[in-house]
């Protein structure tokens, strides 16, 4: 069901944990839907020096958050903003259709953490103006049903 890459990140998730006094913290999803993702950022000179995550969710939710942290670590804020859920899915070697929303969650968690950083420091980050961390991230990819 899952690619080797997904299983690898699920089994040995990178960057699990918290950052004390993080510069930005973002949390998306809700327990009702069975998934919460929380991302902590340490940012210096526009560069993401460190990143950690915690996730309550399924295998692909954990793998998505793990690979997303890897993909933004050491990158600039602008580069991190360009992280799309598609890129996450590709990096994971694909996700089942029903699990694509887990990767969307990862993209949004990163953005939410960046938004928090912007708000704490009173700066505007280009590309985040319309971002709403509480927006419903669920996309249903059910197979055809005929009734």
């Amino acid at each position: 069901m899952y690619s080797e890459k997904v299983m690898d990140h699920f089994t040995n998730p990178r960057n699990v944990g918290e950052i004390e006094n993080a510069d930005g913290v973002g949390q998306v999803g809700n327990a009702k839907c069975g998934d919460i993702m929380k991302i902590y950022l340490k940012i210096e000179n526009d560069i993401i020096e460190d990143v950690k995550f915690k996730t309550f969710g399924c295998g692909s939710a954990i793998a998505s958050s793990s690979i997303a942290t890897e993909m933004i670590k050491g990158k600039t804020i602008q580069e991190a903003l360009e992280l799309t859920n598609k890129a996450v899915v590709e990096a994971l070697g694909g996700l089942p259709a029903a699990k694509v929303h887990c990767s969307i969650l990862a993209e949004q968690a990163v953005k939410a953490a960046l938004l928090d950083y912007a708000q704490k420091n009173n700066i505007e980050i280009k590309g985040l103006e319309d971002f709403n961390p509480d927006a419903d991230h669920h996309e249903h990819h059910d197979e055809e049903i005929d009734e």
Partner: protein
Amino acid sequence: MSKRVYLDYSATTPMKKEVLDEMLPYFTEKFGNPSSIYSFGREAKQAVDTARERVAKLIGAKTNEIYFTAGGSEADNWAIKGIAYANKDRGNHIITTKIEHHAVLHVCEYLEKNGFDVTYLDVDKYGLIDLEVLKNAITDKTILISIMFANNEIGTIQPIKQIGQIAKERGIIFHTDAVQALGNVEIDVDELNIDLMSMSAHKIYGPKGIGALYIRKGVKIHSFVHGGAQERRRRAGTENVPGIVGFGKAALMAMENMDHHINHLKMLREKLIKGIMEKIDYVRLNGHPEKRLPGNVNMVYEFIEGESLLLSLDMVGIAASSGSACTSGSLDPSHVLMAIGLPHEIAHGSLRLTIGDFTTEEDIDYVLEQLPKIVDRLRQMSPLYENVKGGQK
């Protein structure tokens, strides 16, 4: 992965060797069509008759009240649609529960789109229906009560005899989905006032793709699969002879083995529940503490999600099942866990371990060694657990 521990007997069971041995001749040698009159057909017909007797005996039915189907789902579909359409001159109201298997629920939903009214009874926190509520739900138009014998997720066993009694007094047909109960609970259809009952062989160490519907003599029902004259003209299709033979053998073994089987499962179940309770915090048992299937251990592990628990168990060779519907591609948690009142996030953290005849004490020990480590690891990753720990500090 070397060690493999299968704890998903409620999903399906391995077939017993004795069952396979009994089936084997009917594939390549005694392969005749039982409807034929020549000798190739006669030996097949005899085998089908014997199997029918065995299944009948397991549930205290008459031989000619057993109709073979392709499994539990077909039996459920047949019972409910067949009764609904054959009795629609008497009414259009059906009573069932919120915790039925999808093979019952989805048929009911289909019928709702086609002129029938369906009442879905609530259950209490243990998964039990309330008999008074059932009585009050009955109207002049009620033609069918369909309530499952034992629930596949949480294992709760309903008061079937009393339900049957209520149905009987009111002249309403009573169907029960006994797919999970068969072989795990003593069943006598007469004593329990059951009119129709769904069964499936692959849950009792028989083959997949074969089941049966018990239909009490005299009950008015439409055919579901129309065509040839098989199954006393009620269910068409060349008989799945090896499957039927296997079901018969499994039924015979279930009957002979019942006491030992139930004791073995209960013993291991108690050991597993006790061990989990002792070793892991923030867990609770779903379903009724006593009125439950002997092999069912469905528990909530707070702050973590079922699928990741499943995957982690799989990596150490343990096969289980999750109350979380993430696995099935839908985002809603199990309708059963919602019906017993679990909040969403808790329902997502449920895990079902189901024990069977081949489960050993060592298997349980292995689970009790692995599960706490896995739960701990996942909780360390969980943002929900963080809050709890914070609160405790």
